[in-house]
């Protein structure tokens, strides 16, 4: 299996005390059943297809990529809301990839999640106090109702909510306040890692800043580690120490935040960055804009070789034949890895690049080649 070959490229340093979460070659497939008139074919959505990541203590790792690239699936694998198909996830030195529900309980205390939709992630029929007290009740923290109420009100205060609003329903709060409730719930158990699944993308821009700053304050106050998922690159840039870019279930580039934004090596990262809106229209006009051709291929039959090759302005025959490993390119530091055979040099005009591979040669995948 190619899984083992991949693992060999990343030295397994499970004992590194700086690493809180290690994701090794994690794969998550979702079965899809399509029934045509005569046959039933079982195919798989390759939502996350061999991802290696490290999340270090106290850092914020940004995870970006367009809709459907597997960011949220990866987040749900790390929080074990989904069982992974293969691979390994270690948290704090413990392999948690196959833990039973019961064995997961202590881990659930340490890993909390903030959800995208502040309307959908709070039960509309329950009072805010009871929602925030949920993690306490589930994990048996706090001996009495009164004690839990105190912890809940502390959490509410910590996230900038009026603790007096303990008895209200979620519908009585604005979107930003609701997201604060979600943050308070995630904080109630004082976790080590908070997975933020697009925590601000459903909010107004002005409210986004409030929540982002709140998360940053809480991080320095409580020593939290974040996995911060977003498709808004400017938000990710603001909060992240390191950034990973995902495309079709794979990490295509990972580096310190500044390196990704200033020296992106992967053509996809470059294209993604060129789409960030700039506040100054004059600057925006002058900027190179890379317009990708075509749509994201179906994750049911992902392209062979480099997954980005059907849309890549630099695609060559090698991109079809050989899947590029995620490793440092050009003269990048070891912390900056990109999965591209033809990394983009600083200052290179990607908009002018022409692929050496014609459209016919770009193989999306032979039917059934990867799905079985």
């Amino acid at each position, binding site marked *: 299996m190619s899984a083992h070959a991949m693992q060999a490229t990343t030295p397994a340093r499970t004992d590194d005390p700086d690493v809180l979460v290690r994701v090794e070659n994690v794969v998550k497939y979702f079965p899809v059943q399509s029934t045509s008139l005569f046959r039933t074919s079982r195919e798989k959505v390759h939502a996350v297809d061999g991802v290696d990541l490290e999340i270090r203590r106290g850092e914020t790792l940004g995870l970006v990529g367009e809709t459907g690239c597997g960011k949220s699936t990866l987040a749900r694998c790390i*929080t074990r809301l989904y069982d992974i198909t293969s691979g390994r996830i270690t948290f704090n030195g413990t392999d948690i990839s196959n833990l039973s529900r019961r064995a997961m309980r202590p881990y659930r*205390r340490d890993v909390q999640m903030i*959800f995208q939709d502040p309307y*959908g992630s709070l*039960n509309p029929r329950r009072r805010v106090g009871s929602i925030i007290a*949920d993690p306490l009740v589930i994990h048996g923290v706090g001996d009495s109702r009164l004690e839990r109420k105190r912890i809940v009100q502390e959490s509410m205060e910590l996230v900038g909510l009026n603790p007096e*609003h303990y008895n209200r*329903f979620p519908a*009585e709060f604005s979107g930003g306040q609701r997201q604060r409730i979600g943050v308070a719930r995630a904080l109630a158990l004082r976790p080590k890692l908070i997975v933020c699944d697009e925590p601000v993308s459903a909010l107004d821009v002005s409210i986004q800043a409030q929540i982002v700053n709140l998360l940053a304050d809480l991080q320095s106050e409580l020593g939290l580690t974040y996995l911060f998922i977003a498709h808004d690159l400017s938000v990710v840039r603001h909060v992240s120490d390191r950034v990973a870019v995902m495309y079709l279930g794979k990490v295509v580039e990972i580096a310190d935040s500044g390196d990704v934004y200033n020296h992106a090596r992967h053509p996809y990262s470059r294209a993604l960055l060129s789409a960030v809106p700039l506040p100054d229209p004059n600057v925006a006009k002058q900027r190179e804009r890379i317009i990708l051709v075509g749509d994201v291929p179906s994750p049911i039959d992902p392209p062979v070789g480099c997954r980005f090759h059907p849309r890549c302005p630099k695609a060559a025959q090698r991109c079809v034949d050989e899947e590029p490993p995620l490793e440092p390119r050009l003269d990048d530091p070891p912390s900056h890895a990109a999965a591209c055979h033809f990394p983009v040099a600083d200052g290179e005009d990607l908009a002018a690049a022409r692929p050496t591979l014609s459209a016919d040669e770009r193989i999306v995948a032979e039917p059934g080649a990867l799905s079985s």
Partner: protein
Amino acid sequence: MTQGVGDALVAGRAEAPPEFDGSVAAASRQIVGRSPFYLAFSRLRRDRAAIISFWVIVAIVLIAIIAPVFATITGHGVNHQYRGVEALSPAGQPHAPSSKFWFGTDDQGRDILVRVAYGARISLIIGIGATAITIIVGVLVGLIAGYFGGIVDTIIARIVDVVLSIPYLLFAIALVSVLGHINLWVVMIVIAAFGWASVGRIIRGQVLSIREREYIEAARSLGAGDWRIIFHDILPNVIAPAIVFSTLLLPVSIVAEAALSFLGVGVQPPTADWGQMISASQQYIDSGVAWWYLFFPGIALVITTLAFNILGDGVRDAFDPRSDRLFAK
């Protein structure tokens, strides 16, 4: 801030909740926690037909409770068979309403007024009891089928299909005759045995959509177990449809009880019961001699079911603000 939202939802203002009187600065702009049930109740309060029905139901419940008072005032025992021209005609026929027997007498010379009052007890006890059993069983089944899905859901769905396809009255008659001894519990369980399936089906549908909500995922990520999710996160969201369904189910249960008694497979004589009285009155209606014998238990049954039905409609409208009636007014 959120005050505007709250006010837009409810016209009337509410008292501050007792837990927090906001002794701090918050007192200046006190926002009141309004539960969905409070909102529904305040909508219901503006529905005149529902409120009238509610008071009618209160009156019927009172009559049922104070039924012995009727016996005391009239001096007629509920099962006492009176003889003589005041109670029975010389031919042994029921006597028309008179100053002694306000609602007339039945074929046994018993006071219909007292019997109608006592009959309200049976109707309400069985109606409420059967509805409660139906809703509890139906909600539990719906929660389990909808939440666990898969094979559990398939098995429950088949059982529901079977139950719904059984002709209810025929089966009830057969069951009751097999059981022989009939008491209130048997009647309630027989009625509930056919009602839970449709409740279960509706609740299951609700659970299917609630199960996919993000807050369920949130609960799971916190480490909540299946039963905690079912009872703490899903159940509160199906209570409203369950309440609506039970108010609509109550009159159905009352009519079902009357129907069973009418057929002689409900509560057994000499217990006073509306269905039984209607049944017994039949032979006097054809000949046109004793209209009161049918009329009084019949009108009691109609008023009771009508009141419950109108209240049920009102409750449904109150819980579903999008329903048309609210805007039509």
